[in-house]
């Protein structure tokens, strides 16, 4: 059984998260400020930590920094601050994910599971990358058997969706416009291409992303095109 440390000064929120995660079969230990969290980390074998930013005493940012000195467990920051700057700061100091309050409980659970899979099961898989296996963070494409998995979970894609995803993953970091994708996948000249590509992209995102509005892998560069974030 995996242990998750939840740290927030609001007891009801901790309680709610406890109910959700316990329901999913995790063991939850609770802390109500940063110092408590650090103590619990020392005394328990923790697999993942969820931490609030604004807490009395040691705040979430400093707690994360402290944890990162000794441990590489997944850390998810949970905060009422939803500005870009706050997210960037949180991710930069070593957190693996940033969820802003009020959060969707299902999304939280999905993310927790995703991080745990990557951390525990796939930690060593990365080295075995073969010629026809493309990897990008938790996203894995095996071109031999046309399989796509995210954090170890198999994803079902249509052939066109698969081809689009493969094109983007092969050229991770490069931005493709709608016309470029159309020409590459359909092998036709894109004259006044309709919304087909955009719709397909949206479908892919809905399948591989936990929250399609805030994608981790397939990013929309508005007014330019689409790309897979290099990780």
């Amino acid at each position: 059984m995996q242990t998750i440390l939840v740290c927030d000064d609001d007891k009801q929120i901790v309680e709610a998260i406890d109910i959700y995660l316990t329901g999913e079969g995790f063991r939850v230990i609770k802390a109500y400020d940063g110092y408590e969290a650090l103590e619990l980390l020392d005394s328990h074998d923790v697999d993942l930590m969820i931490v609030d930013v604004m807490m009395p005493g040691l705040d979430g940012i400093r707690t994360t920094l402290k944890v990162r000195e000794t441990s590489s467990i997944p850390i998810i920051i949970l905060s009422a601050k939803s500005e870009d700057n706050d997210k960037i700061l949180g991710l930069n100091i070593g957190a693996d994910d940033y969820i802003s309050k009020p959060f969707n409980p299902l999304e939280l659970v999905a993310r927790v599971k995703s991080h745990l899979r990557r951390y525990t099961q796939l930690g060593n898989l990365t080295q075995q990358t073969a010629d026809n296996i493309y990897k990008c963070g938790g996203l894995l494409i095996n071109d031999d058997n046309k399989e796509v998995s995210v954090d170890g979970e198999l994803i079902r894609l249509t052939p066109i969706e698969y081809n689009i995803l493969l094109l983007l993953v092969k050229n991770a970091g490069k931005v493709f416009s709608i016309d470029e994708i159309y020409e590459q996948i359909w092998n036709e000249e894109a004259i006044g291409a309709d919304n087909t590509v955009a719709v397909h992209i949206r479908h892919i995102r809905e399948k591989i992303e936990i929250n399609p509005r805030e994608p981790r892998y397939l990013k929309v560069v508005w007014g330019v095109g689409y790309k897979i974030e290099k990780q």
Partner: protein
Amino acid sequence: MKRKNRSIALKKQTALLLHIVFLCLFLTGLTLVLFNKNFRRGLGWIQEESYVDTLPFTQQLESDVETIFKYIQYKDLLEEDGEINYDASMFCVTYNSGYTKIYTLNEAISYARRLGYYLTDAYEVAGGPAVHEKDMPGNSSLLIEWKAYDPDEIYTEPGDAFSTVEDLSVQVLNVLAEYYHIRYNYIDQPSNLYFRVSYLDDAADGSGEAARKIYTNAPDLSNEDLRNMGRYLFISGDSIFVDSNLRHVPTNITSQLVTHNRSGNDDYYILLGIDTGFPNADPYAAANSEYDGIRAEYIGGVLLLVLGLAGLAATFVIMARLTGHTDGSPSIALYYPDRLPAECTLLLLAAALRIGDLVCQNALYRFVRLFVSREYTSYAEQVVRGVVLYAIAAVVFFSLLRSFKARRLWKDSLLYRLFGHLMRAVSGYPLPLKSAFGFAAYLLCSAGLTAACLILYSRRVSMRIPYLYLLPALILAVFQVWVFFLIYRSRVESAKISGGIMKMSGGDTSYKIDSTGFSEDAARVSNALNTLGDGLNTALQERVKSERLKADLITNVSHDIKTPLTSIINYVDLLKREQIQDEKIQGYLNVLDQKSQRLKTLTEDLVEASKASSGNIKLEISDIDLVELIHQSNGEFEERFARRNLELVSSLPAESILIAADGRRMWRVIENLYNNAFKYAMENSRVYVDVETEDGLVCFTMKNVSASPLNIHADELTERFVRGDVARTTEGSGLGLSIAKSLTELQGGKFQIYIDGDLFKVQVTFPVLQK
């Protein structure tokens, strides 16, 4: 304080003392230069560094050349093998009886001595017969056959050919005296002038050097030695060129040289050498040392003159700076006379100068005459007068200067008071009248000055100072320049002020009008304007600051709301999971769920709206393709629209259209518009989306038919919390359009909403980026 005080007084005294010292130096220099022998020859002669370059030297040399050739003549006549030949024939006379007698030198001398003539130490003929002895033979007019010492004499008058033996003997004695004189001075005595004259005698037998006659006072020195004396002169018979390093060649020398050539050939030369070290005492040495003295004196005089002038100027400037600063306080100390009006001071100056003149003439000149010899009296008087008048003028000048420094010169003057009275008299009249007065005054002054100038010009011949007409002309010119300056300054001022007003009204409220050099009135106006600008600027900054504070407050409050909201949402969700069968409770839970979700979007949108409207957002502007963006947005929304049976009809250009915008914020604008259509468009209707370019602008247009009647004004829709349905039954914060509008305008675009019945139309316009 006291020390500084003392030091200023000390400085003043020192400066005055130095001034007097420099005045003395100046006068000394002036005197030295004025009474120098070479005064009025300019400064160029100082370049003649040695006496041998001067004219007196050339004159001396010319006379010496004359003497040298005389010596040559006498040496031929009187000398035989270096000794005086007393048997040499001097002259031949024929007596009345027809008897002819040749007198030798000895006989001539004896004859003269018998008559009492003798030679002095200075080789001059002196003495003479006390009584003419009638019985002396030859003491009557005899016909002169020839004179050996003057062979070329031409008798022009009939009596010239006759003379007495006495006269002839005296002539011989004179010749002998001159010979001795030359011989003593130039041959026996060491001289600084060395010469060598050489002729080739055709008559003598033998050839080469033996037949050469050489006359010299330096038999031991070679020609080369003579040339190396310092200055030399070489003229030979076979060349027309003169070989010399003298500045001036004596003019008589060539003719003398040719005249004394007894033979027909041109193998002869003269070589002169001047020892410029002047080791021997002779006229050259004496003249040289005198020349050096004069030159040194002149140079010293000029230097003193320059030094004195420079010192005078420097100390004058120092005194001018110090004057008035007596008591160490920053204000200027004025003596009583300094407070007099400037006109009075000038009148006093004229009177003082006159009195000074009188004092000089009646008292000081007499003292001068007591001490100074006659020839210098006039000069000394001039000096005394100059010094006295200078002192008076300087005292008055410093008085005026102090007054000027205390800024009282103009204010104390009678002219200013007159001017003030005039201005006060005029001040009551309205502005047009004042301007007319001003113009009339200008015309009057100009006309008066012109008239004065013309009158003085027409009478200039009869005036004591003929150029007096230039004075009003000068004043007129200055007056015109002054008036021009006033007009120019006023133009510049009004241009600067109006420029400042334009800038401020254009939004640059921090602009400051630079009022340096402005007149009093204009400076007041521009300062007032600057203050006004400051006030506006402060108000503007205050507003921006308060907007920002408001945005910050909203952000913080929303954070505080979010935490309890999280619990509400989570526990509502947990309740729903409890599978409660009671439908009533199910209904309540649904309401709770809906409202808590709405509260969530509301808080999020609230933060965004306040930030967007206060401009508190960091934009990442780049080149984005609006067509691509619309395609992407269509892709995002197509299925959602389909859920509400909305048909998306888009007409987009095939080519890309680039605009400068922040891609994510632009997506937010479009997303809000699509969301708006999604929420409020009538079901089963169409939503039209166009992108068109026109006149360098690209316009995105979205049209849909509203589900509920739009009974409000278009502008109100973009105001915060306003929604098309007044009853607010649907989801949404009511902030979407407001955020879209703020974000569009932040990125430099235009956002317009048109309402025509139930038709809702929104346009977003951006300038197209030119490639």
